[in-house]
């Protein structure tokens, strides 16, 4: 893999992107299509807890929720993964033994990424050794904004190597990149440096995932696929809290990259409260009554 030709990266028309994205939000998805979409969304969720106050019990609870979403509804899929800090990977791994749910771990001095490469690499290796199936790294936004693209590229490549067999998701933290042009540039750098997935945000900065940003990233994936035939995954994270928004993202995914991407191997939602909202919608489809969070497990 080589460094992308930054001169050939297309410029982004911000208003045009907004227009296209608005159209994705107007599709009418009802009854059986809605149910299918909601099931799909559930199966793509990375159930996430990334707080300073996380304890082993909190992670155990989350893992239990991941494998028992809502027992009174029949035929529900599992979520794709549970996403935790490196020190809690072992706990999650043990809890999820025997399920097909992956354990994802953030690494590389998450969420700021302000640390030395050595620290970042040992952080990554620690997470992988603890049993993480997927690693979510953050890029050095400061260096990126200062124009040190080679530094960012090399760092991603080094972390990719440290991951070994674990899948690498690269968090661009688009809320700090200011422009869509920067988002596109960072996407290309991450993809060319070896990312398996590109991810919008840490969830610690507002705005987190937005549809325009995701659309730009999906197009970077599309162009890369056209050029090389390799499929890169996408993970919008943060701020996607309702089933309605999740369905709009799926519409955008389907109409930008096509049905090949409509599975958990190539698309994920990083979210914590989304699962409950999707479950409430499914239960509403089932019973006909609007639901209350009182009847669903707390995250």
């Amino acid at each position, binding site marked *: 893999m080589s460094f992308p030709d930054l001169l050939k990266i297309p410029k982004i028309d911000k208003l045009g992107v907004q227009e296209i994205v608005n159209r994705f939000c107007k599709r009418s998805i009802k009854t059986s299509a809605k149910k299918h979409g909601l099931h799909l969304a559930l199966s793509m969720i990375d159930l996430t807890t990334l707080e300073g106050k996380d304890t082993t019990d909190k992670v155990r609870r989350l893992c239990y929720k991941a494998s028992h979403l809502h027992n009174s509804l029949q035929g529900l899929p599992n979520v794709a993964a549970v996403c935790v800090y490196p020190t809690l990977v072992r706990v999650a791994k043990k809890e999820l033994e025997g399920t097909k749910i992956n354990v994802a771990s953030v690494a590389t001095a998450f969420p700021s990424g302000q640390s030395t490469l050595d620290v970042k690499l040992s952080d990554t290796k620690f997470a992988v050794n603890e049993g993480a199936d997927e690693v979510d790294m953050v890029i050095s936004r400061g260096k990126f904004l200062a124009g040190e693209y080679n530094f960012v590229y090399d760092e991603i490549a080094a972390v990719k190597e440290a991951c070994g067999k674990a899948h690498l998701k690269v968090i661009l933290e688009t809320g700090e990149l200011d422009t869509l042009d920067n988002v596109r540039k960072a996407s290309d750098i991450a993809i060319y440096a070896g990312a398996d997935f590109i991810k919008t945000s840490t969830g610690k900065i507002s705005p987190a995932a937005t549809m325009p940003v995701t659309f730009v990233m999906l197009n970077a994936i599309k162009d890369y696929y056209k050029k090389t035939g390799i499929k890169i995954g996408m993970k919008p994270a943060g701020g996607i809290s309702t089933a309605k928004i999740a369905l709009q993202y799926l519409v955008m995914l389907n109409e930008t990259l096509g049905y090949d991407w409509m599975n958990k191997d190539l698309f994920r939602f990083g979210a914590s409260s989304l699962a409950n909202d999707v479950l409430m919608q499914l239960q509403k489809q089932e019973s*006909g*009554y*609007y*639901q209350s969070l*009182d*009847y669903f497990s707390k995250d």
Partner: protein
Amino acid sequence: MERIDVLKTYKIFIGGKFPRTESGRYFHVKNDTGELLANMCLSSRKDFRNAVVAARKVQKSWESASALNKGQVLYRIAEMLEGRKSQFMDELMMSGSSKIAAKKEVEQSIDRLIYYAGWSDKFQQIFSSVNPVASSHFNFSVPQAMGVVSVIAPNKFSLLGLVSVVAPVIVGGNTCIVLSSEENPMVSISFAEVLNTSDVPHGVVNILTGKRKELISHFASHKDVNAIIYCGHNNKELNEIEKLSVENLKRVKIYKRKNWGDQKNQSPYFIERSQEIKTIWHPTEV
């Protein structure tokens, strides 16, 4: 040159905003002689759902606001209503009230708000008790807000009826979603404008206009609604409400009153109807 009157667009009131109905539908409101008075939003179940979300979001913080504060907010509503008395009288007269009746209805509405504002820090004492028990416990009961309440407002007395039902609900720390009078919904939306300028936190009162026939089942079945207040006499509607409310053990309160102007229709017991009684067992020394 003759001036063209600017007519008001009546919209609905959800979470402190005045959106049009999500459904894009409307219905005609006419006076006794069949003259068109206004186009009103024909709210859909999705408007109701959005209103419940708004009401749920603010419920805890409204409940935990101090009694004094809640009383002040109610008093403020009365102040704002007083200042717009003539507008409300006009709207009531448009739909057939006499001038005397309209004036009386608006003034009684203001007085009723003041009445419940006064009760904000007093009803707790009346409905609380210390209970004698055989064990070594200090046992006491206190009223607590039920949560989110859906309200089917009276058809007659479109302003006074609405105020008489909503004021005791909110002064007790509940938030509500109101379906306004079907016959004269205009005053209810003007009342929403009053609420919106009276320091009532957004979402505490949400007002929809539309048809009972369409909305009652959703008002009664939504599982995030803790209680429903129904004003009317239609047994078929009552039956439906009772049946659907069972789903989440919603508390059903029915007001069959005809004359909301009667002084008997204001009392602290109206507040009590949307309160739960919580009993606490506190260990004491033997």
